[in-house]
């Protein structure tokens, strides 16, 4: 499995990661090597196997729908990069 530069750029965009032009060749090389390495899985016939998502095949536990946490907005926002009037600030999203 060998990735092309354009594919790596697309994956980086989907993953919301900026890559510098200079770094792309090395990422392309490393990611291609990793995909080539995992390719050996395809030699195995797994048609009869059920996928295993959880080591103990457990399902999510349910709990009663009651409030268990208090609102700590101010506390949590003390570590935010930029806040104003209790809101997280980001660049303008809607024109």
């Amino acid at each position, binding site marked *: 499995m060998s990735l092309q530069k354009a594919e790596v750029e697309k994956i980086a965009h989907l993953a919301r990661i900026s890559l510098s032009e200079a770094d792309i060749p090395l990422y392309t090389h490393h990611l291609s090597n990793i995909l080539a390495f995992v390719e050996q899985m395809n030699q195995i016939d*797994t048609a009869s*196997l059920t996928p295993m998502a959880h080591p103990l095949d*457990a399902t999510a536990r349910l709990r009663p729908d009651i409030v268990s946490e208090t609102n700590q907005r101010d506390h949590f926002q003390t570590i935010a990069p930029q806040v104003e009037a209790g809101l997280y600030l980001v660049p303008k999203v809607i024109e």
Partner: protein
Amino acid sequence: MHNKTLTELAQALQQRQCSSVELTHYFLNRIERYNAQLNSFITVTTEVALAQAHAADQRLQSGQADRLTGIPMAHKDIFCTQGIKTSCGSKILDNFIAPYNATVVEKCQATGLVMLGKTNMDEFAMGSSNETSYYGPVKNPWDLQAVPGGSSGGSAAAVAARLTPIATGTDTGGSIRQPAALCGLTGLKPTYSLVSRYGMIAFASSLDQGGPIGLTAQDVALLLNVLAGFDTRDSTSLAHPPEDYQSHLNDSLAGIKIGLPREYFGEGLSSDIGQVLETAIKELEQAGATCHDIHLPNTALAVPAYYIIAPAECSSNLSRFDGVRFGYRCQDPSDIIDLYKRSRGEGFGAEVKRRIMIGTYALSAGYYDAYYLQAQKIRRLISQDFANAFKEVDVILGPTSPTTAFNLGEKTDDPVKMYLSDIYTIPVNLAGLPALSIPVGFIKQRPVGMQLIGNYLREAQLLNIAHQYQQRTAWHKQIPPQFT
């Protein structure tokens, strides 16, 4: 003082031979003296430690102490500590002061353990050598040219150099056991979800598990008693009744059946490690255990499957680091997409970016079945291998790592080569089983670790075998010469 086990330290505290404040000062002094050489701590929490030690001394005086009250310890910097920097070894969390405590941290506090600091680690626990940390690599106390293993390399180096009596770690593909092996320590990865994952920064949620790294099986058992237990705040937490992991340490090994998987002793294992293990196996046989050849035929598929499953889960888990609510934000973003992309591009290191991108690719339209679903089916095969083996034997024995500690820089240029150093530990995480590593010898002054894998929730049995081995040998008592 620094060579005492937890049991001996607890006794010294309870008999007033020393106070917790004295003990804490003693280890803080060792950290100050030696940490610059090792880089094993990201943050040393002197003030918190002394305040906790004072409180512990009051508990000891008033007769309200628990078994481990007043004993110093260290937490891997993946566990959230309220009011204290929790970096996960990453630039993106370099400014992150956790607003709450991990359950593991809370349990340690409640029993009166004293936190000396937060230990260095591979960034987001992605690495096998501690070289992906934003805070620089950790050195192996046995040889400063060598890596300590990873990702819990800071915890392992700190315990091996006796800068802390014990530490926590986490293990997603071997990150407790491999550094324990490379640093000559006892490290236990419990059954998946025996220890709460609440407040343990997530890497791959179906694989991550916290556990102790210490000098002896008994020490590890004592800390596991504190760490294990059901937690409503972890949606996958096991509802398993509390156990005393010390209670079976002295059981006889007579009748215990140990399986030796041929796949763990074949091609890829350094031959001198094979010889060291042979000697350790004979020791266990003399203690009454019997050994049997077994097969885990799909072992070679574990690392490929893991490098789809773990990146897939990490690409999802790490999407929360977006520069909006906490952590690093890039300068002057032009729009929201630029904010996300540059905050992440500048905040994450190369290995983390590689894994997020592999995961993103494996989960993207058109590739999901070929990669992610196939990997989950292989995971089933690996798990079935173990289930079949446990019909024949009680525990499985093999190497923890294919080599002893490698040199700094030796594998950093080739991610796949680095991944293969976890070939014997990764299958255990895929199946969710408990396993530990204990020191069983040295090759060229570098420690060799032996791995014992148990069936689900058989931690006590693993610790029993490890303890019996340690009663007959002295490998766990060796101290790196520069840190005596």
